[in-house]
Structures are given as structure tokens and as C-alpha cells.
């Protein structure tokens, strides 16, 4: 390798290292803002600014879904095993909404510690199987606890 080429390679290399470092620092600094939702245990630990609207994500706790009266309202609990938050919602639900399934609710925490949601999104668990396999595995009732793909790296 000639001298000029080595110098250019060094230049390009340091450009990449510099940019990578800058990006890493920036993303670490803004980590809280890049998170799309917060886990129930982070709310319990007081890591979430509860006076504003925010998203909370976790599994719909088994046996927690009930629909009072009017057919549009639904109450359920979002859990990550370590902590549980009760949620109130009025509106349509995505197809994938069911107990044991990951969901993300957008709204506000009220004084009583209940979450008043105005949007519910379903989170897919990234596993795909045929109905036969699902029956064989008795899946479909899904995880009891928060799967790794619903948690941010720490």
C-alpha cells in the first residue's frame, strides 16, 4: 500500500470511529427519549414523568380483561411480572389484543394510579407458527412474564 493510500485509509477510518463515537454518545444521552414505551416496573420505580402523557407497554395480565356495559369500554391490567398497572380504555382494539399478548397503551396516569388510555396498539411477539404447531405447543395463551423482546437493553 502506498503512503497516500495509507493516509487516506487512516482518514476514512478515523472519520468512522469519530462518527460512531458521536452517535453512541448522543443515543446514550437521549436514551429515555428514544424509548417508545415504558415498562410497568419503571413506572413503579418512579423513572417515568407521570404528569405528562406517555406510553406504557407490557403483557395483558391473564384474567384481567373485563368489559363493563356499553360494549366499547374495556378495563385490563398491563404487567411485566414485577409490577402491574390497571388500564381504562374506550375504543376499538387491534386484532392481536388478547390476554398474555404484548400491548402498548398511550395516555395518562391518574391520581389513583390508574392509566387512562386513548390508544391501544398490539405488539407482535415475532414468533410465527401454523395453527397446528400452536395447538401442539398449547401456545396462543403466550408468555406468563415479559419476554425479552419487550424490554430495552439496560
Amino acid at each position, binding site marked *: 500500500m502506498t503512503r497516500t*493510500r495509507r493516509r*487516506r*485509509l487512516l482518514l*476514512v477510518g478515523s472519520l468512522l470511529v469519530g462518527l460512531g463515537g458521536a452517535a453512541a454518545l448522543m443515543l446514550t444521552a437521549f436514551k429515555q427519549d428514544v424509548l*417508545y414505551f415504558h*415498562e410497568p416496573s419503571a413506572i413503579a420505580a418512579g423513572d417515568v414523568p407521570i404528569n405528562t402523557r406517555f406510553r406504557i407497554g407490557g403483557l395483558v395480565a391473564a384474567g384481567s380483561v373485563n368489559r363493563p356495559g356499553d360494549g366499547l369500554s374495556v378495563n385490563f391490567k398491563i404487567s411485566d411480572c414485577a409490577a402491574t398497572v390497571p388500564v381504562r380504555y374506550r375504543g376499538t382494539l387491534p386484532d*392481536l389484543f388478547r390476554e398474555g399478548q404484548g400491548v402498548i397503551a398511550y395516555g395518562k396516569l391518574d391520581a389513583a394510579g390508574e392509566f387512562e388510555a386513548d390508544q391501544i396498539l398490539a405488539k407482535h411477539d415475532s*414468533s410465527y407458527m*401454523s395453527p397446528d404447531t400452536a395447538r401442539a405447543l398449547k401456545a396462543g395463551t403466550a408468555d406468563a412474564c415479559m419476554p*425479552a423482546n419487550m424490554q430495552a437493553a439496560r
Partner: protein
Amino acid sequence: MTGTGFKRWFHRFGSLPYFYDVSARWAVWLAVPAVVLIGYALVAGLFVVPPDYQQGDVFRIIYIHVPSAWLSLFGYTAMAVAGVVALVWRLKIAEIFIVAAAPVGASFTFLALVTGAIWGEPTWGTYWVWDARLTSELILLFLYLGVIALHQAIESPRTAARACALLSIVGVINVPIIHYSVVWWTTLHQGSTVSLTGGSKMDADMLWPLLAGALGFTFLFGWLTLWGMRVQLLWRERRSRWVMKRITHG
């Protein structure tokens, strides 16, 4: 390969008339596997494999979405590698690769975003959210468009190529961010179904057409890019003797 053998290959490959002549023959070796693999993936994925236990038939869009998303990342990474070669060794063929690959990569990125949105509405309950995965993939589309626009905006081909090479290298920082976004942060987008180290979370009969599709799309990317390179090459060297000779003699 010995050091000198590699060096000779490297320089012969960098010779434009040589590349133009052999690339016509290579194209077949990219086109045939592309057509066969994508054909198998689509027929098997859309008609043969069973529906998903939760999503039903909606999941079948994965046979377009995942290969497109894979190529959006692969294409940009390849452009960045070519960018280093173009800046350090000043190899023209690397410059031409960047220019030819950018529109192909942009198309796959666009396809990944659109198929993702179509799948997201029935599954998640929304077409679009600003989570880390979706946002960084959108930025990737803008980076591709930036490379294309930069190339169009600068008149001198060598200056344009150098600018495009630099943007390819700078933008590649976004590639690992896209890939790991679902691990580093909480996102609406799910984590990877298939990984090189951790196996797959998909039934084997569903998985094979997906892998075939990803491989087939990779061949398609190579084929389209190679053809784009030939066109770029003719245009850039249009005043040279070797191009004249090939055009007048067929």
C-alpha cells in the same frame, strides 16, 4: 489467493472495458438464481405454507417485507464498503457501484416501509409510529435519496462520486442503529424472528421460503445493480475509444 494474485485480480477488475465485457456474462448467473428463488419463495409463501396461528393470512407479507428490509441494510453497507475503496484506492468501478446501487437500495427500502405499514394496520392497529426502528429505517431511505440527489447535483463525475462515497460512509452509522434498535430501546416493532446466532422463532415450513426469498432478493439486487453499472459505465466513458468501438461493432 496470494498477495500478488489478489492484486492482479483487483486491478484487472478495476479496468473498465474488462468489467463491461465480463459483466454481461455474470448477469445470467445472477438473474437465473434470482428468478428461481423468488419464484419459489412467492409461490410457497403465498399459497403453500399454512397461515399464522394468530395473524392468519396477513403474515404472508413477510415474504416481501423481510427480504426488502434485509436488502435495504445490505445495499447501504455494500455502498459504504465501495465508498472506502473509491476514496482510498480511487477505483472508478467502486464509484460506479455506489451510483448504480443507490436507486436499487432506495427501492427496496421503500418497499420495506410500505409493506410494513400495510402489515402494521391490521396487526398493530396503526400504519406508522415514530419508534426507533421505523424512524431509523425512514432515515435510511432519506440517505439513499441523498446519495442519488448528490450525484445528480454535481456536474463533474469524479467530484460527484467522491461526495457520494463520503455520504455512503457517513450514513452507514445508521445501519447498526436500525438493526439493534429493537434491542437497545423499547419499540413497537418486534425483535428479529431469524438471527444468525439465535436460530429462528418460526416454523420450518414457513422459514425456508423466507430464506429463499432473502437470498433471491440478494441476487436480484446484484443483477439490477450490475445492469445499472453497465449503463453508468457507458455514459461516463461515452467519449472513450473502447465505448465507441463496442457501440459501433455491437
